[in-house]
């Protein structure tokens, strides 16, 4: 991030970033550096970093394992708690989670927990260390809709308990937001592919190009003997603003822009003068994507101040170091065109009477996302007006065999790490449901017609 040597902008003069679009920004730790960093760890009593991890990845224990040269034990701690350990190591908002809780900050600065986690998961891969050894999948079949982090996590958890799991994915590539919604500079595709392979090696099947509601209906899934179904479909739709000119060619959404760039679609055109609207991590990913794909000028327009922006601070600094412009407390008012082509974004101050005019051939909306409408596909469960599913406790819904996890769950905090945890919790609910149902069945045998105690 800010200490990266891949960025060609050192003295604040931005010409062209030396970093390629597909290159990971943060270099990996060598074993020496990992040991040095682990040696900075205070090895706290009841480590607050572990409390700070939403997915119980347990940094306190895995950093201690590194410190005591038990690298494989560290891998075991990470992987057995977080199947997407390598992904989370790269995309977690650490400053709000583990690193935010780090007591070392009282001396100087927090331990770089994400980078240590990456070191361990890289080490695990480079040594072919097999952490997870699933039992035979002999239990009831479970289906998942969408192959993003929530489903991958839930599927892995269930596979480890002996359930055969099938994931239905509408796209040609698995991973959901991981494969389509994050800039490779933060999360290279090979990392996503390796972790998906990890899950499939546990016996989980992923059916690509299969959209539930179009290629297969919920009833058909049930008829195929799936005893529980989890929805982990994420958020597919970027919100936009009702601004004059929003139908113009050149106005697009974060979901579309990132996905096109990431799938290396030949039709992807980053734009020459790009304006990104929003102040979160997705907005930064769009801006970085534009910049690393040779956009000449990139401006991020955000309606509040820099301090109020929800984006990760390190990412924000990194984005700034790439020579991306930020315009705060400004909101777009009109997209102007010439001959049907976008030329200018006009913006007005949200807290002053300022006004701004920015040359633009591309505008990307990154002001938040929401799920697509599943109410016709899955009946009987609750949706709010923005298509989020109103879950009950622990990923259950008002329909007993339907569960939910990840961004589509109204209670989720919309981060990858939160989806990992949501998937684990939903998996436990699924297991509880299936064992209860199984027990009921067993008790209703001829020997005990009225059920057992």
């Amino acid at each position, binding site marked *: 991030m800010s200490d990266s040597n891949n960025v060609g902008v050192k003295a604040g003069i931005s010409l062209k970033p030396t970093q390629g679009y597909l290159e990971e920004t943060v270099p990996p730790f060598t074993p020496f550096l990992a040991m040095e960093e682990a040696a900075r760890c205070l090895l706290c009593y009841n480590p607050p970093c572990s409390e700070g991890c939403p997915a119980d990845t347990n940094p306190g224990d895995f950093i201690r394992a590194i410190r005591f040269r038990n690298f*494989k034990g560290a891998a075991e701690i990470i992987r057995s708690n977080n199947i997407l350990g390598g992904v989370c190591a790269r995309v977690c908002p650490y400053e709000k989670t583990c690193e935010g809780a780090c007591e070392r900050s009282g001396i100087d600065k927090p331990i770089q927990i994400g980078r240590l986690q990456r070191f361990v998961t890289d080490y695990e891969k480079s040594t072919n260390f097999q952490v997870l050894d699933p039992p035979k999948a002999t239990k009831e079949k479970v289906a998942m809709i969408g192959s993003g982090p929530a489903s991958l996590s839930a599927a892995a958890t269930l596979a480890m308990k002996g359930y055969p799991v099938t994931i239905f994915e509408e796209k040609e590539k698995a991973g959901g937001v991981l494969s389509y919604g994050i800039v490779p500079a933060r999360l290279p595709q090979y990392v996503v592919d390796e972790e998906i392979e990890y899950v499939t090696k546990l016996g989980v099947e992923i059916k690509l190009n299969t959209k539930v509601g179009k290629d297969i209906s919920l009833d058909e899934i049930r008829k195929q003997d799936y005893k529980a179904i989890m929805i982990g479909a994420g958020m597919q739709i970027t919100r936009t603003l009702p601004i004059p000119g929003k139908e113009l060619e050149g106005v697009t959404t974060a979901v579309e822009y990132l996905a096109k760039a990431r799938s290396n679609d030949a039709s992807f055109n980053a734009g020459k003068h790009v304006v990104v609207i929003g102040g979160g991590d997705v907005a930064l990913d769009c801006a970085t994507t534009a910049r690393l794909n040779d956009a000449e000028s990139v401006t991020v327009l955000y309606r509040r101040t820099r301090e109020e922006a929800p984006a990760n601070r390190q990412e924000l600094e990194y984005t700034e170091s790439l020579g991306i412009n930020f315009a705060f407390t400004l909101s777009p008012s009109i997209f102007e065109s010439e001959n049907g082509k976008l030329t200018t974004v006009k913006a007005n101050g949200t807290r002053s009477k300022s006004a701004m005019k920015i040359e633009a051939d591309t505008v990307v909306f990154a002001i938040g996302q929401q799920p697509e409408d599943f109410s016709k596909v899955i009946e009987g469960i609750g949706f709010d007006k923005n298509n989020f599913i109103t879950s009950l406790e622990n990923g259950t819904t008002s329909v007993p065999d339907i569960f939910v996890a990840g961004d589509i769950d109204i209670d989720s905090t919309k981060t990858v790490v939160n989806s990992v945890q949501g998937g684990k919790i939903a998996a436990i609910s699924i297991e509880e449901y299936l064992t209860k149902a199984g027990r009921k069945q067993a008790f209703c045998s001829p020997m005990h017609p009225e059920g057992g105690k």
Partner: protein
Amino acid sequence: MAKHADLSIDFLGFKCENPFFLSSSPVSGTYEMCAKFLEAGGGGVFYKTLTTTIPEECSPRFDVPRKEATPFISFKNMEQTSDKPYQDNLDAMRKLKENYPNKLIIGSIMGMDEDNWEEMARDYTALGIDMLELNFSCPQMTYEGMGSDVGASVELIDKYVKAARRGSHLPLIAKMTPNIEKMEIPAIAAIKAGAQAISTINTIKAISGMDFDHYTALPVVNGKSSISGLSGKATKPIALRFITNMAQDKELQGIPLSGIGGIETWEDAAEFIMTGASNVQFTTSVMQYGYRIVEDMISGLSIYLAEKGFEKLEDFVGIALKNIIPADDIERDFKILPKIDYDKCVNCGRCYISCFDAAHQAIDWDNENRKPTIDEKKCVGCQLCLQVCPVYDCITPGKILFKEEDQFGKGSKTIWKEEAPNKHDIIVGKYDKP
């Protein structure tokens, strides 16, 4: 979960859950302390040594030498035997055995004279604990004829082991001092007198550092200090040599060894076991980090052994002994030249400095480009450069050169060739690679 090997191992007839024990020391001084360690997964405890007379202690009593910013490279302490009432300690040991029947509970004793050794051995035996350790090795006792004085005297060892034997039928483990050249001599004396096993090392007599205002050693006890015992990571190499010497001694074959000295990680423990110890004990690392370190010892060693295909820990005991040979048997007919990876080199020049100032002036330094180059003719393959290089995997072992048959006798110029005479495979060691 990944495959983990079974770490259980026999020690004098007791089936230990794993080979990780607290040594008799400040970290094993009460019931609660020992119990917490056993709950954390430890295989057993050597309860802190008792004397029937409670010693007077000083304050402060520790010193923690550093190297650069790293504390605890070793540890100096002036504490003696338990400062708690004798009977309370006996009760604690009895309760430990009652509550943890599957863990190894060993009591450590230090008598003043033969009668006292015998009497203490008798008291301990009545507790139902598993074994007795005879402390012949504490270097900071304030009473003469106790501690490491005993460990250096074959006569005293003989007398006191026999006395303890008169008081107990339990297995006896003699804890030896490293403040001696050949530990085999007192160890053999202890075995001949009736001990069944040896544990070592106890601390090394030392001065860890000086106070520059009060002109005394550390720690400063009202302006004065004493020579006392040093432990911790820096003592491990010394301990390993004692263990190796004893494990290789003909007269000590079959005598179980319990290894002590600077054990902090599973790798440290494995080093003792490879050189012949069938279990290990530790204290200093617990003082710095707490009992929880045993969790990573268990995890790390069991994963390692499983990956290496060892079915039981016992098969690993002493596995390195055959490869530790006298210096005059070491092959000296080849050299391994270092190789610099210039993509990784950060141009610091540390290899150049060390080679010039401390080795064979075999690295040339291009000052303009800040680039080191190895002169293959001058390089003797000592690999000091590789050890000082701060960048991971930058300088590594490279080309191997073999000595040409010596045609002109001793002192003639050696000719090096890349081809090995008689197809010679050279095993290259690891350099801090995880």
